[in-house]
């Protein structure tokens, strides 16, 4: 029975005389909604795409938004910082060694004005090294300088560049490799899966710290060998997630339909399954960025990081560690940048995961 039918009968109030005691009154029924039904039915329920919905959830997450802001800020500084400081990262200025931070404007407030408290045998003495320079009035080192007289502002952002670059490349490579490995292993199953998973299990059993260290010793420290060492074991987590998702999806109808239509494995994996799981994989890769940054900083700290005069956040921290008690300012800025970067990436990854899969919240 269509709506119009019911409406006409109700309005007509045509009740058969035989069923007198069962008469319906006009007011017994009420329409669920008032007004023009045809228009109501025609109006589509505004479809919200999954991506849009997820972005909305992400935008409501204050922590994630803050992190995104900080990441953008740090990336911007890393891009333009070394250009605007007026110094180069390897330039050693004679007489400019161990200078405390001095920033225009702030110095008038008596803060970051180039003074530092130097511990002496007779007690603490306030020194301003800028006054000893000939043209000291016009010299500014925003983050100070290191033991060799290199501008720390330039070095910090140059180091951030390198740390970010290493992390991005390492993550990109291990995402591509880990993803393919997991997808292939999951898709083909059976013997292929068995062999591939045994390999993963054995590799997973080796502490990656050891592999990374050994590899870098053999290859000699350098940008390439660090990236190589980081991606050597980084892909395992990614491959596991990809495999699990593939196993979950490959039995579903849409994959079966594509296979029935004659799709080849490569097409099935890349065009049918991958678009459905790319979200999870992206989240996974977001989590591996901070861990790659950390690993690089760790390598630098134990002395097999980026070779001099290049700088990474880890190597600057490692260098300034040696003069921590005399000049603590050398370490504060790179440590803050590193900590902020790690924290932001972790929080953003958390937020992204919650946004893509709200059920994962509180996990």
């Amino acid at each position, binding site marked *: 029975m269509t709506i119009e039918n019911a409406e006409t009968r109700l309005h007509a109030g045509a009740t058969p005389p035989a069923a007198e005691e069962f008469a319906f009154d006009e007011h017994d029924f009420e329409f669920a909604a008032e007004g023009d039904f045809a228009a109501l039915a025609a109006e589509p329920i505004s479809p919200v795409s999954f991506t849009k919905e997820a972005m909305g959830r992400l935008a409501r997450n204050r922590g994630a938004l803050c992190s995104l802001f900080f990441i953008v800020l740090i990336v911007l500084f890393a891009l333009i910082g070394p250009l605007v400081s007026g110094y180069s990262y390897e330039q050693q200025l004679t007489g400019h060694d161990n200078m405390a931070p001095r920033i225009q404007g702030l110095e008038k407030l008596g803060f970051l004005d180039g003074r530092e408290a130097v511990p002496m045998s007779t007690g603490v003495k306030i020194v301003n090294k800028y006054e000893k320079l000939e043209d000291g009035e016009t010299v500014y080192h925003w983050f100070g300088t290191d033991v060799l007289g290199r501008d720390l502002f330039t070095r910090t952002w140059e180091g951030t560049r390198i740390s970010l670059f290493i992390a991005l490349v390492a993550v990109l490579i291990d995402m591509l490799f880990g993803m393919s490995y997991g997808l292939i292993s999951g898709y083909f199953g059976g013997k292929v899966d*068995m062999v591939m*998973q*045994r390999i993963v*299990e*054995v590799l997973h*059993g*080796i*502490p*990656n*710290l*050891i*592999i990374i*260290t*050994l590899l870098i*010793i*053999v290859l000699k420290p350098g940008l390439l060998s660090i990236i190589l060492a980081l991606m050597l074991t980084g892909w395992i987590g990614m491959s596991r997630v990809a495999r699990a998702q593939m196993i979950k999806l490959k039995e579903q109808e849409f994959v079966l339909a594509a296979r029935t239509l004659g799709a080849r494995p490569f097409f099935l994996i890349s065009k049918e399954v991958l678009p459905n799981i790319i979200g999870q994989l992206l989240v996974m890769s977001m989590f591996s960025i*901070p861990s790659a940054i*950390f690993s690089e*900083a*760790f390598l630098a*700290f*134990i*002395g*097999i990081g980026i070779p001099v005069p290049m700088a990474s956040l880890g190597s600057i*921290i490692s260098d300034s*560690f040696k003069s*921590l*008690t005399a000049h*603590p300012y050398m*370490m504060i800025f790179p*440590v803050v940048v*590193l*900590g902020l970067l*790690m*924290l932001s990436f*972790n*929080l953003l990854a*958390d937020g992204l995961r919650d946004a893509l899969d709200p059920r994962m919240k*509180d*996990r």
Partner: protein
Amino acid sequence: MRAYILKRAAIAVLTLLLIVLILFVLMTFLPGSPFNDERLSPEQIATLRARYGLDQPILVQFWNFMKNTFSGDFGVSYAIQKNVPISSFLSSRLPVSMRIGGQAILLGTFLGLILGIVAALKHNTIWDTLCTVLSVVGVSIPSYVFALGLSYLFGFKLKWFPILYQDALPFQSSVLATVALSLFTMASIARFTRTELLEVLSSDYILFAQSRGIDGFRLIARHALRNALIPVVTVLAPLVVGLMTGSLVVERIFSVPGVGQLLVEGIQANDYSVVTALSFVYSLLYIAIMLVVDILYGVIDPRIRLAKGASQS
């Protein structure tokens, strides 16, 4: 169950063999040889090679290397302290590292549990937020940054604890290192405990227990926590990794005479035999702990054992 344990053990042994193979290959094919001296005549070099077994087929060499490694004979150090057997380094340094690592685990687990429980019980209050923030910070901040901060503040400024490790004061001088190492443990355990406890607290059997009149400490300790803590075993694996990497850095910062510092020294001095020996020790420890965790998890939670056994065998 026995099949499961056997399978895990087989994988562990295989991994260990692979590691020994990698180490052997590295030792054999690393650039340079101990006999690079120009003053040595070819005959002398041949004699030396024969003495160290380097003239034998590669398989025999590998067998000898394996035999020595597994019997704890790691050869002598080349660079750090010439001709001192590495096993004597180990026997003096391993206990120090183990002690600090153990203290860190105890402290971290204790604080982590308290934080996690408080956060779950006071869900969605300021306490919860505080605990969550603490645990995110703990996971994100590299332990060495934390260690440097501690050493500057409590060691240098306030002078509560010695900045550098002193053999005469084994406890006081290990306090800062322990705290620095325990941060990661604390953060991950707090995070996990909170999640699991929240889930358990909203389950039916807790409601049932409450309706039977059980509440307060008894409810949490006897009913909720017991089930909530089962999955916490899984964090043990990343924790061990965290402790191992952490120990290298933290021992360097506080100059603790442990294995981690020895490894860093070995790396910096290109003392390959020390590096190989320590790599083996670290791997052995790691694999042993992984094996125990895997088996423990299979024992505690039968679902793991069954699921893995069914899908993989």
